[in-house]
């Protein structure tokens, strides 16, 4: 399983905070996870569409589209941070 988390505006737009994706050979990096999510169309295509700023983390560390993903990883998507 790949644990996928969504935060803040993304969590609200997608209506979900967390889901489990079945690990699969084609889910080899964060980019391919996004591809899969975007394939759901509707709001998913919107949130992960071109021109959207979505930040990503793998196992709680900042990642990018080419960061590898494997079974058991935690992948998170969120907007630009605004703390402090």
């Amino acid at each position, binding site marked *: 399983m790949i644990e996928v988390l969504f935060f*803040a505006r993304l969590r609200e737009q997608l209506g979900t905070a967390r889901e489990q994706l079945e690990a699969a050979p084609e889910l080899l990096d964060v980019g391919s996870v996004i591809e899969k999510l975007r394939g759901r169309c509707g709001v998913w295509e919107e949130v992960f569409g071109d021109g959207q700023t979505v930040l990503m983390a793998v196992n*709680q560390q*900042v990642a990018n589209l080419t960061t590898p993903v494997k079974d058991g990883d935690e992948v998170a998507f969120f*907007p630009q941070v605004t703390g402090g």
Partner: protein
Amino acid sequence: MNTIQIQKEPFDITAIQEQLRSDNPAIGAVVTFIGQMRDMNEGDQVSNMTLEHYPGMTEKALQVILDEADRRWALMGIRVVHRVGELQPLDPIVIVAVASAHRGEAFQACEFVIDYLKTRAPFWKKERTPEGERWVDARHADAAAEQRWGKGR
């Protein structure tokens, strides 16, 4: 030597500074930043705010920032406490307190930590205004402030 806390409860500014500054008689300077909630943002009245974060990653991201500060300057302790959950205007949101033998290092490290926190630590603010709720947008000023410090990692 350094501590990081994320909490819903208000934090005790006095206790944080007292504990840090009385830790070591070689400390000559303590610089503290307190960020607090303003009742206005982008021209709108803000009645309250909810702060969300990414538990686990938040602490790790802050630890990386504090480690980097320790690598760059000769420090004698850093305390970071950040609130999450519901906040009202005038509530302190975050405190960053840095101790050092001399003030130059304490000032630089304190500003470095808050600049990086603002752009690297996974916190998100949602404001309540007369027009309803809205997520706060990242400020260009914060990215610019971070870039001053050059390539750190």
